[in-house]
């Protein structure tokens, strides 16, 4: 209905292959980005930043990374929590060993280190597939958590086994540590997310992304047209782990400030991120964000409704919340197994065809 595409013709392949070939989409995204970058920083307070925006941005980044692996390359991973832990501990070690290192590089390097670890745990993917692989990635989850829990070097032999992030600044603005301002943290995470979402989109629409999807859709045929399975799968593991590692790094350094590995990066985190990907939509970058938004906001809203709205006991409400989450997930899978992104796609298709039904 609001899509008025007539007259938007393409005279070059570059224009035809643009990320948003439809002008209306482009405007909306630009407007959205403008609000996120310019308006929101003036409006956020501590509560909104900590309860909503930071988890949303950070889990969005993690979901994006996992979606590359699961949604684009078809390799199921249940080790996301473990890989996020790698990112977090890498950041900790980097920040404490090289105090001069800029926080941006800390995050990037943490992602890089996670990518290496991801490749290591991706190696079995050449020989095993499907759920066998999914279970194998659980090995990564348990092994890594154990490692960070047991080996003192990783947490600098602190008595509690916790790690906490020292203050770091960029352009004179403190990003990490207790003194960091909400809007700075928000913008820092948003910057990462926006930039790497763009990078992800670029990669998936190019040769590498097509190879991933080829492996996902039919690995044998992919190999017969010259896609190298190992290289392709490992690149997906690396790329995905890079994102997940950065998310882990941001979660620790910017959002939580201090973490205890068995709590912050448990297997529940792996499932949470996987849910974001599935409910958001496999193989969709937009879906990763929608899924993250949904799963970050849903518990908050449920809790608010039950505890503040209906005056239920928090313990009781917690049980109900878990139950409802389970039900909602099942409900979503039944209603639209292809996720929120598909719902949007269908809506968009309808809007584009309006007033015609098909």
């Amino acid at each position, binding site marked *: 209905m609001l899509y008025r*595409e*007539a007259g938007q*013709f*393409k005279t070059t392949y570059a224009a035809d292959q643009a990320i948003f070939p439809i002008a209306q989409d482009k405007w909306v995204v630009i407007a959205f980005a403008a609000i996120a970058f310019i308006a929101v920083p003036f409006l956020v307070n501590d509560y909104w930043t900590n309860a909503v925006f930071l988890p949303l941005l950070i889990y969005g980044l993690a979901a994006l990374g996992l979606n590359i692996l699961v949604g684009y390359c078809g390799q199921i991973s249940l080790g996301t929590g473990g890989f996020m832990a790698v990112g977090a501990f890498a950041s900790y070690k980097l920040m404490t060993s090289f105090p001069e290192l800029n926080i941006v590089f800390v995050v990037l390097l943490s992602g890089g280190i996670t990518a290496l670890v991801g490749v290591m745990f991706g190696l079995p993917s050449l020989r095993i597939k499907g759920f066998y692989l999914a279970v194998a990635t659980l090995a990564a989850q348990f092994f890594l958590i154990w490692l960070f829990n047991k080996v003192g070097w990783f947490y600098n032999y602190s008595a509690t086994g916790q790690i906490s992030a020292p203050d770091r600044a960029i352009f004179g603005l403190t990003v990490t540590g207790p003194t960091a301002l909400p809007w700075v943290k928000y913008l820092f995470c948003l910057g990462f997310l926006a930039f790497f979402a763009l990078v992800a989109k670029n990669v998936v629409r190019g040769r590498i992304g097509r190879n991933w999807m080829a492996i996902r859709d039919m690995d044998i045929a992919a190999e017969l047209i010259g896609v190298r399975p190992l290289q392709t799968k490992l690149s997906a593991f690396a790329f995905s782990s890079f994102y997940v590692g950065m998310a882990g790094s941001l979660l620790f350094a910017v959002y939580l400030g201090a973490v205890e590995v068995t709590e912050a990066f448990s297997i529940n985190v792996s499932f949470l991120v996987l849910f974001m990907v599935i409910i958001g939509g496999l193989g969709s970058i937009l879906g990763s964000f929608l899924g993250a938004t949904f799963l970050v906001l849903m518990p908050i809203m449920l809790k608010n409704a039950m505890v503040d709205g209906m005056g239920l006991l928090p313990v009781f409400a917690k049980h109900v919340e878990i139950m409802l989450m389970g039900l909602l997930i099942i409900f979503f899978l039944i209603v639209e197994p292809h996720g929120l992104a598909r719902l949007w796609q269908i809506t968009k298709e309808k809007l584009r065809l*309006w*007033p015609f*039904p098909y």
Partner: protein
Amino acid sequence: MAGSPVVERLDEDTFPKILLRNARVFADRPSIREKDLGIWQTWTWAEVLDEIRAFSIGLKQSGFKSGDKIAIVGANRPRLYWTMVAAQALGGVPVPVYADSVAEEMVYVLQHAEVRFAAVEDQEQVDKLLSIADRLPLLEHIVYDDTRGLRDYDHTRLHSFEGIQDEGRKAVAADSGAIKAWEAGIAETKGSDLAVMLYTSGTTGQPKGVMLSFDNLVISARNGNTFDKLDEHEEIIAYLPMAWIGDHVFSLAQAYTAGYCVNCPESVETVLSDRREIAPTYFFAPPRVFEGLLTHIMVRMEDAGKLKRKLFDYFLDVAREVGEPILNGEQVSFGDRLKYRLGELLVYGPLKNQMGFNRLKVGYTAGEAIGPEIFRFYRALGLNLKQLYGQTEASVYITMQPDGQIFGDTVGTPAPDVEIKIADSGEVLYRSPGVFVGYYKNEEATSSTKTAEGWVHTGDAGFIDDRGHLKIIDRAKDVGKLQSGSLFAPKYIENKLKFFPNVKEVVAFGDGREFSGVFVNIDLTAVGSWAERNNVNYASYQELAAHPQVYKMIEEHVDQVNRDLASEPMMAGAQIKRFLILHKELDADDGELTRTQKVRRSFIAERYAPLIEALYDGSKTCHVRTEVTFEDGRKGAIEANIQIRDMKTYEPVGGITREAAE
């Protein structure tokens, strides 16, 4: 959009000269596009000059001389348009030919026009020409655009377009003066020179070659541009046959004089989506295109949800009520304007967008009468659709509807520089700068059409109403009398029936007979979709056409027409007494329609003589056997028992015309 910054210089009186000007003043503006390999490949005016020059000089190298004719055979492709101007630059004359004519039909035109060269689209056309080459001794060279499948052909007389261009570029490289010489040649072309020869696909007899001079085309085109304020910012889509005067004027003459951009669709099948992509600002189509589009919209809306249908119907009603007044700049209440605005957002805008008309500045329909309902539908949506009346012999424009004076039943006032008069016989005559030079090698026809004073017989009967607008009734020669003496205008009756979406074609009979009777051809898309909705099963077109419910539906339409006719004093006597539904679709391949999809009445009368006889001898059914040509060229026959229905007629309602009633 402000008018073009270019002060028209009238000494640029030929297309090659205008090309040089455009390449100078519009150098970087798009001149032509073609949807090819997935995107709209675009050439600017400067690039077009380069392409045409190379080809033109190459053509000269291969022996093309001033006065030579070059046949143009193919769909709307940039290179074929360029070939025309390239030939004109050398003093040659392009002769566009209908690309879908079979080889036999083509022979006559190519022989008659004495073409030495032919520029064709692809292998299909090359094969066609080669198959008749022995009957075309004058034809020396064939140039083709699309190289596919032609690699292994004998290339002594066959050249690729690029091949000729390469020759041209080589010649330019070898001789620095070649370009100067070529431009000097262009300077020698004059407005009075022959620009193009277009063969009219007359309903009877062999086609006649209408000779048009540069003056004819250039002056008419400039008048047309001024009339509708067209400039270099227009985008049009070239999809009608290149051999048809309409396409020649819109896609070449007006495009060159205004400097606007012509867009060639990817293929015939993709015209709809290609038009949507381009969203032309200026559009031209015969009524059947608008009819088809409307049918398409309505059929698609049938499947929409209830709420959406309600919304759609409601706002269409709003549009029918206030859309036209708003478009015509009349006083409309604020509430209605608001409703119309809302409708624009929810229905009209999206609809125009779906059709690719959201940028449309002005659209024309011509060639035949358009159904008033259809015409009004588009105008109600806010589209500035207008009618014009034109002919090949007039370089299109005879009358046009000026903005703000749009009436569904007239074709407008005389176009700029055009004079009109009505002969005693009722025939319309005109005189204008666009009047053709003559029919090629046919003095007799020329003198019988064009008087010594320059008046041209249109062959159409009509009158000028009190508003100064021309109203066309029918072909002058087709207007006849029933035995009762009442006026019988077959096309008038046919059109009334054809305005129903379920009816595709109609052939009316009655001249010199007792009463009017008609053959009806149902529209497969519309009736098929109706059948689907009403659980009417059918296996073939023939079965559907003979279905009792279909007959019932058509009967209602005929009855409606009779009521209409009864309200018009001049026509009331010609109400339809009997009708039948034809068992097959009228088809150009069977010779029943012309290549421009017009009914060939006399041919049909001959072919279906038993049916006509049955129509007038009172029988209820008639058995008929018909030869048909299938798509692949094979022949066969189909047989059917056709039912004939009697209809009620009405007493004439004195004085009240249909228009007045509405």
